[in-house]
């Protein structure tokens, strides 16, 4: 069952004084299966974040459709929680306050006990017990994004949308959080759609990687299945025989934009 289906979505920006609209991407189609982890990988500025925002419903497509569970989406919703690159935490709320605001919004009928239980569970899940009453300004980037993850997970949405979630986190912390994300993904059985420009991150985390060409007129050019068995670990994944085949494929794609005229479907088997 396809949980998410993006059907020939296009996005244009119009600039005052310029006759032709700037096409960010055109006819982008993709789908995500239930419990799958899919990444869209592309250069900065190729419009992948815009694509994610369209799926989230906080931006709108100029053409095409997005379906969730077979129903066309209109606007944002609690069934699609976003984890933002810059965390987007409310700085005036504490760690648990930031998570509570989401639980409260999603389960307005719940009493205080139930809300607190849910908040506590997800604070624990992201390993922030003890830091509940801290404000975002007192947290490191890694801890901030843990709050972002907890806020997204605690609502128990149908799909999680990650917008370069670890780009602003230092490399050492990034690896730890990536592994924790995978653990939470497996534990909760949630579906994840991520956009990133980090090649190693995409390989480490995803089941499938969609390669997006640079804009304007960006397209999804290639789909790579990451056939590396889980659990994957940062330290050992590079020793897998399939790893460099995938990595080289992606690097070649990213460094040579003229190579592709037609979208391709490649299935690299390890």
């Amino acid at each position, binding site marked *: 069952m396809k949980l998410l289906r993006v059907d020939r979505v296009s996005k244009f920006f119009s600039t005052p004084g310029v006759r032709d609209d700037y096409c960010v991407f055109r006819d982008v189609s993709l789908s995500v299966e239930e419990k799958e982890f899919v990444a869209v990988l592309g250069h900065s500025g190729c419009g992948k974040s815009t694509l994610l925002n369209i799926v989230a419903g906080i931006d709108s497509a100029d053409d095409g459709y997005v379906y969730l569970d077979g129903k066309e989406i209109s606007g944002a919703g*609690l069934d699609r929680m*976003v984890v933002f690159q810059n965390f*987007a935490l*409310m700085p*005036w*709320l504490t760690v648990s306050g930031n998570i509570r605001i*989401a639980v409260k*919004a*999603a389960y307005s009928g719940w009493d205080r006990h139930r809300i607190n239980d849910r908040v506590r569970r997800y604070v624990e899940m992201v390993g922030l017990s003890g830091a509940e009453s801290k404000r975002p*300004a007192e947290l490191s980037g890694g801890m901030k994004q843990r709050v972002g993850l907890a806020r997204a997970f605690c609502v128990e949405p149908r799909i999680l949308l990650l917008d370069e979630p670890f780009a602003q986190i230092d490399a050492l912390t990034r690896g730890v959080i990536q592994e924790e994300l995978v653990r939470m993904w497996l534990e909760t059985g949630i579906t994840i759609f991520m956009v990133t420009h980090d090649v190693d991150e995409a390989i480490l985390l995803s089941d499938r990687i969609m390669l997006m060409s640079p804009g304007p007129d960006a397209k999804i050019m290639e789909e790579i299945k990451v056939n590396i068995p889980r659990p994957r670990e940062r330290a050992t994944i590079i020793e897998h025989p399939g790893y460099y085949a995938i990595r080289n494929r992606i690097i070649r794609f990213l460094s040579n934009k003229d190579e592709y005229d037609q979208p391709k479907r490649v299935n690299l088997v390890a």
Partner: protein
Amino acid sequence: MKKGNGKGWLILCFMFLVLFLGAWQLYTATFRNLPGPMAVAETAWEFLSNPFYDKGPNDKGIGTLALYSLGRLSLGFVSGSLVAITLGVILGLNQMLFKALNPYIQVLRAISPIAWMPLLLYSVQDSNWTALLVVFMASVWPTLANTAFGVSTIKKDYISVSNILQMNPVAKVFKVILPGAGPTIVAGLRISMGSAWVAIVPAEALLGSLGLGYFVWNEWNNLSLTSVIFAILIIGVVGVCIDILFNQLARRLAYVD
């Protein structure tokens, strides 16, 4: 700053006070047409030792008069602020409306609330109401301008989060927009409060509504300059106390992004 002179400013502050009082004393000793610090201190002691006396409708203790002014200030300020914040949120969320109304707000803001007084007095035909409306007028504009600005410059991410969480408009305003714009709004409230406190003195003086402004003018008519100076000091001190309260509020609402 160098370490070890944490208390230095206090000593300096005290020295300025001594310097000021000395200059004052010297001035009055030379020209003799102004009451000196001792005379004012004597009057102050007299007034402050019995702050709430009541000898008829026009002769009340300084504490009572201060409470009259503060009551008028609170009522006018709270109602003015509620209007200003409500309007400000609406304008902050509607860029077109904000742009269209901003020139008028700027003009209105530039008008001294005292200038409205004749018009207000003519309209409501009551001096107490007029004094209240002057305070109201003084309270509205800075808060309105600041609220609209604060709301319109709130980070788009916070709004996105509230959209994703499907918050209803009321929750959005109270849980995201107001706390997000909180520090800017309080900065506006502080300016409003300052201008309201400045406006209340001439309003009371001119309208004869009981209060500190009335007291200043009344004592001038009695040619009691010691009392006038004492009243000036009280007005300053009360103003500072109010500002300290707002400083506390600002600190509570401040956040580091």
